[in-house]
């Protein structure tokens, strides 16, 4: 709830980049994840930013934590909230060298 309010406020004040400060950010410039591994607490979100010049398609096939962002346009960001503890591999469906681990802890 708290997050929703923060997000709404930020939209209202037009500081969309600042809104993301609460989340850890993962970037994709040059077809490479900015981190090979990220640790977060259960229930927290990561912000995946496509700061590259081409679309990416982030997803996970890790059992129980499957998701798919679809084609993510350059210059956009998407929040992904992880609600269960565990190691979740995030890949780009398009670019096979793009792989990272999200370590979600209790």
């Amino acid at each position: 709830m708290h997050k929703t309010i923060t997000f709404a406020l930020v939209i209202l004040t037009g500081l969309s980049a600042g809104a993301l400060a609460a989340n850890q950010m993962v970037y994709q410039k040059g077809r490479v994840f900015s981190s090979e591994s990220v640790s977060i607490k259960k229930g927290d979100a990561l912000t995946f930013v496509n700061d590259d010049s081409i679309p990416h398609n982030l997803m996970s096939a890790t059992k129980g934590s499957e998701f798919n962002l679809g084609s993510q346009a350059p210059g956009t960001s998407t929040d992904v909230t992880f609600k269960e503890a565990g190691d979740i591999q995030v890949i780009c469906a398009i670019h096979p060298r793009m792989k990272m681990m999200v370590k979600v802890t209790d």
Partner: protein
Amino acid sequence: MPGLFPRRSNLFGTVVVAASLGAVGFASIGLGAVVVGETRRVDLGQKAAPGIDSIKSQYKRPATIPFPKENPYTPEKAALGKKLYFDTRLSVSMAQSCASCHSPGFGWGDGLAVGVGHGMAKLGRHSPTIVNAAWGAIFMWDGRLATLEEQALGPIEAAGEMNMPLDKLMDRLASINEYKPLFAAAFPGEGMNAKTLAKAIATYERTVVSERAPFDAWIEGNEKAISEEAKRGFAVFNGKAMCSACHEGWNFTNDGFQDIGLPSKDIGRGEFVPGVVKMQHAFKTPGLREIERRSPYMHDGSLDTLEAVVEHYDHGGIDRPSRSDLMKPLGLSAQEKADLVAFMKTLTSNLSPTAVPVIPR
């Protein structure tokens, strides 16, 4: 890109995105362990287009071939791998070798639209070159094999291709006296088995590297190495035509999967990633080294010339949900198309002839 999410309707725009993700059948909005939130526009700042020197620096040839830790190079392995690569007894018919479809004479492909397998039956896809396979991140047009070692065994076993069960093949090779000492020298203590067979063939394949081409001399500073037409083509390749968004780096591929809008029923990568729209009809981006020698082109061999390939990209292909967002009509002029083709021809090296090895008896 601007206008994708109109300024005042950020939230509305994101709802639309979320809903379309739901249709994919993967995203779990408000359900399950992972929740995908809103997609927003972010300001990445204005970036100046990189200069020609900066672009050229991304195309330098590597100095060495990468070999994996699990299967390091030895001359014995490569020599054994070469004999196996050219040995037709790896197929059940004893008529086809790896080199039948990946022949040094045809830029390490076969010059056919689609490959020919067991019983001379046509296969579904074009035989890819093995040039520069050492740098591959994933193998086969649909990426179904992760390593070159796995790739080496794939066509041997495939019923439609060489149709040779591996246990039967190892029995056959064991009965050929001259193979035993070669395996013993290449794999001391490991013996003759499918694993060492794959390691030997993969090691040999990694040594198949495109040689220096005029393009490389130009990248290294010789302005006379390629024509002005080709230089303009390189600029179009990296600029207006955006070819380098996928055909990037010295081997001209990032091994990514894209649906480029060819009218084929084959879903390619989609078979392995069924829930991901952009992977339907997607195939692995091939490198462009020796491309002039590798016609016909595309995963289905449907285009005969480089000119036809450029026309396809200029047109943008079939507009369907899976088509890559990078595919769109380019509006290239006749001059720009000709320049692109001139540029691609500078990637042809003076490949020195490959000697066919003496096959063990």
